[in-house]
C-alpha cells in the first residue's frame, strides 16, 4: 500500500472528526459544508480508488444533516404537529396500511403521524424509555407491560375528554384492557381473536360431522373421529424461544370456560394459585385430550417439536380435521387456500366451545398508550379508538395484500366496524367477537414476564412432553411467581 493511500485514510479520518464536530455544533449546515470543502481539498491528493468511499462519507454527512433537521427536539416537534408511533407490527403491508389509516386524519387535522414498526419492540421500548427517547405513542401487545410503564409514571393517563369520546366506541370488557389502577391509559388498536377452531366444512360434511356446540360435544367428536380412523387434531407448540405459548392459549381458553371470568382475573393477578385445582384441572383436560391415542397429528414428530405455523398444510391436506389457533392463523395457510367461500377444500372457523351458557372469548391484540402529553397526541389517540381508524386500516391492508380475497390478519372489536370490508372468514371473527358475552385478554400477556413469558411456557412444554405431571408443572410455575 502506497503512502498516498495512507494519506487518504487520514483524510477520511479528518472528515469523520470534522463531521463529529459538526454534529455537536449548532450550525449544522455550515459545519457540514466545511466538512465537504475540507474533504474535497484533501481528497485531491488521494487515489481514485478511495474516492468512492469519500463520496459515501459525504453522502452520509448529508443524510445526517437531513436527519438532524427532521429530528429536532421535543418542542420543535410540537410546533410542526408530528406524532410518532412505534409498535410491533412491521411487515411492509402492515406499515403501509397503518400509514394509510392515518392519512384521512392528517388531511382533516394537519397533524402528521409517523409509524415505525420494530422487530424487537419489547426490548426497544425499554431502551427508549430508559434513554429518554420514548415515542409519542406506542402500540402495546401486552397490557401487562403497559401497566408497568403506567405505574412507573412513564405513560400519561388519557384526559377525560379523550377517554369519554373513545370509550363510547368500545364495550366495557375491551375498554378495561387499558385501565390501570382506576386510570385509563390504553386504547384498543387491534384485536386478535383466539377462541377459534380452524376446519374444512366440506370434509366435515363428507364425514357427517357437525360443529360441536359444547366442550362435551368437542370431546365426543374427537372420539368419533378416532373411531372412524381420522386424526381429529393438529397441534404444534414449538415457537423458538417462545415454545409453549400455544399450550398456554389452550389453558387460558379452558380456564375461562371452566373456572369463569372472575377466577380468570384472580389467576392473572396471582390471587388464584397455579396449584389451584381449577388450573391443574385445565392442564389435565388438555393433557387428556392430546394424549389420547390417535388424537393428534404433529408433523414434527411430537407436539413440542412441531412449529405452530406448520399446522396449516396438514389441515388443508387432510392429515387432521381441526386446529385451534387465533385469527392471525390465516397468514399461515398454504398459498391459495380458499377461505370460507363454500368451495371444496375451503377453510373456515368455528367458536371454541365450552359447557357453560355464556360465550366467553379469549383475545389478544394491541393497545395504544401515550408517553407525552400534547393536544395533538390526544387527537391521534382518540382517532385510534374510532371505527373510522379500524375501517380505513382494514381497507388499506386489504389493498396492500392484493385486494379482494386477501386475509388481512387485522380485526377489531370496535363498535361500528364496516363488515363489508372483511372477507367472509373475517366476518365470522367479527361476528364471534360481537356476540361474545365476556372477553378476556391472553393471560400470559398479563402475568409477570417471569411467568407469562417464562415458566408458563417452559413448564407447560415439560408437561406436554410428559416430563412432568400437571401438578408438578403447576407447582414449578407457582414457585417462579415473583
Amino acid at each position: 500500500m502506497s503512502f498516498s493511500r495512507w494519506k487518504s485514510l487520514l483524510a477520511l479520518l479528518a472528515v469523520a472528526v470534522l463531521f463529529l464536530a459538526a454534529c455537536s455544533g449548532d450550525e449544522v449546515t455550515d459545519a457540514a459544508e466545511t466538512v465537504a470543502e475540507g474533504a474535497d481539498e484533501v481528497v485531491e491528493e488521494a487515489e481514485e480508488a478511495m474516492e468512492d468511499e469519500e463520496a459515501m462519507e459525504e453522502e452520509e454527512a448529508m443524510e445526517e444533516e437531513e436527519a438532524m433537521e427532521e429530528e429536532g427536539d421535543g418542542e420543535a416537534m410540537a410546533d410542526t404537529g408530528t406524532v410518532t408511533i412505534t409498535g410491533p407490527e412491521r411487515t411492509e403491508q402492515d406499515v403501509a396500511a397503518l400509514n394509510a389509516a392515518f392519512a384521512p386524519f392528517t388531511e382533516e387535522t394537519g397533524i402528521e403521524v409517523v409509524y415505525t414498526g420494530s422487530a424487537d419492540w419489547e426490548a426497544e421500548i425499554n431502551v427508549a424509555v430508559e434513554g429518554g427517547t420514548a415515542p409519542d405513542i406506542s402500540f402495546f401487545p401486552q397490557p401487562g407491560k403497559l401497566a408497568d410503564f403506567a405505574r412507573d409514571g412513564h405513560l400519561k393517563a388519557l384526559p377525560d375528554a379523550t377517554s369519554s369520546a373513545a370509550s363510547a366506541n368500545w364495550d366495557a370488557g375491551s375498554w378495561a384492557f387499558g385501565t390501570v389502577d382506576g386510570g385509563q391509559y390504553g386504547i384498543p388498536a387491534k384485536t386478535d381473536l383466539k377462541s377459534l377452531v380452524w376446519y374444512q366444512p366440506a370434509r366435515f360434511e363428507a364425514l357427517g360431522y357437525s360443529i360441536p356446540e359444547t366442550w362435551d360435544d368437542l370431546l365426543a367428536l374427537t372420539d368419533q373421529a378416532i373411531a372412524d380412523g381420522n386424526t381429529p387434531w393438529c397441534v404444534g407448540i414449538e415457537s423458538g424461544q417462545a415454545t409453549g405459548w400455544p399450550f398456554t392459549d389452550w389453558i387460558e381458553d379452558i380456564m375461562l370456560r371452566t373456572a369463569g371470568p372472575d377466577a380468570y382475573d384472580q389467576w392473572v393477578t396471582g390471587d388464584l394459585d397455579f396449584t389451584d385445582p381449577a388450573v391443574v384441572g385445565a392442564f389435565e383436560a388438555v393433557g387428556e385430550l392430546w394424549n389420547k391415542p390417535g388424537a393428534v397429528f404433529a408433523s414434527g414428530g411430537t407436539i413440542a417439536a412441531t412449529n405452530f405455523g406448520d399446522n396449516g398444510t396438514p389441515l388443508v391436506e387432510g392429515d387432521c380435521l381441526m386446529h385451534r389457533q387465533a385469527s392471525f392463523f390465516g397468514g399461515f395457510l398454504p398459498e391459495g387456500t380458499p377461505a370460507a367461500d363454500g368451495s371444496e377444500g375451503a377453510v373456515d372457523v368455528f367458536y371454541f366451545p365450552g359447557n357453560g351458557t355464556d360465550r366467553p372469548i379469549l383475545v389478544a391484540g394491541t393497545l395504544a398508550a401515550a408517553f407525552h402529553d400534547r393536544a395533538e397526541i390526544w387527537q391521534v389517540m382518540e382517532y385510534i379508538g374510532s371505527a373510522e381508524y379500524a375501517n380505513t386500516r382494514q381497507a388499506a391492508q386489504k389493498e396492500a395484500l392484493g385486494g379482494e380475497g386477501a386475509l388481512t390478519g387485522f380485526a377489531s372489536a370496535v363498535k361500528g366496524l364496516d363488515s363489508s370490508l372483511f372477507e367472509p372468514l373475517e366476518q365470522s371473527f367479527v361476528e364471534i367477537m360481537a356476540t361474545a358475552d365476556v372477553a378476556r385478554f391472553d393471560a400470559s400477556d398479563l402475568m409477570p414476564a417471569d411467568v407469562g413469558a417464562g415458566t408458563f411456557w417452559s413448564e407447560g412444554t415439560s408437561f406436554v412432553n410428559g416430563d412432568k405431571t400437571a401438578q408438578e408443572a403447576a407447582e414449578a410455575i407457582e414457585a417462579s411467581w415473583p
Partner: protein
Amino acid sequence: MAVSMNADSGLGSILYRGLSRFPMWAFALLWLLPSLGLFLNSFRSRDAQRNSGFWTLSPNDLTLEHYETVLGASSVNSMGDSLLNSLAISIPATIIPIAIAAFAAYGFAWIDFKGRKWMFIGTVSLMAIPLQVALIPLLRMYVSGAHYTLPFLDKTLTLVPAWGVNGTATAVWLTHTGFAMPFAIFLLHNYISSLPKDIFESARIDGADHFTIFWRLVLPLSIPVLAAFAIFQFLWTWNDFLIALTMIGSANPDALPTTITIANLAGDFGRNEHLLPAGAFVQAFIPLVVFFALQRYFVRGLLAGSVKG
C-alpha cells in the same frame, strides 16, 4: 529397486495426504451444511420451506420471488437505503478505530513514558466490560449530554453537551468505535511491539522522529494486522443488530441498517419467516466481498503477535 521405492513413497504420500486431508474436508463440509441449506431454502417457496427440509429440493419449488421481495422491501425503508445506511455505519466504524488504535499501539509499544505499563493494562482490561451494560447510559449521553453537579457549590458542569445524535448513523459508529478500541489497541500493540528493534534504532540514528518512524516504518510493516482487524471490525459492525436498534431504533427509520430491515421482514408471529434465508444472503453479500478481497491478510493477521520477531 529405486523405482519401486519411488512408487512406494509416492503411494504412501498420496495415502498420507488423502488421510490427513479427509477430516479437513469432512469438517469443512459439515460446517458449510447449514449455510448450504439456508442458501437452497432461499430459493424454495414458502410452503416448501414450511413443509420439508432443504434436502427435498425439487425444481417445482424453486423461485426467485423471495429475493425480489427482499430487494424490493420498503417496510420501514428500502433495501437499497438500508445497505447504504449499513455502509455509513460500517465504514467509519472500521476506519476510525484502526487509525486511532495504530497511533496508540505504537505509543504503547515504542515510546517510553511514565505509567505506560499501567495505562496499557488499563486499556486492555476494558475488553472485559460487556458493551450491553453501557448502551443505555451511552444513549442517555447522546440524547441529553453528561452533566455533573459539584457538591455544596450548586454548580453544574457540562462534561458532554447534548449532541442529539441518537437516531443517526453517527451514534452507531461512535459507539462501535469506542467499544472496538481496547481490542484494536491490544491486537495492534502485540504486532507492532514484535517488529525488530534494530530498524527503530537505525531510524533514530538517521534522525527520524516518532511520527516519521510511525508513518514510514510501522504502518507499512503492519498492513497484515491492520487488514485483519479491518475484516473483523467490518464484519462485526456490518452484522450488528443490537447497537443499531438501541441508538437508532424507531427514532429515525430512514437511518436503519440492513440487519434491522431484514428482521422487520419476518413480520409478527414470524408469518414471513420464509423471507429470512434470502435476506440472509443479501445481508452476507458485501461481507463476503470484503472477506475475499482481504483474505490473504487474514491468516497472517490471525497469527499477529503470536510469534515474537
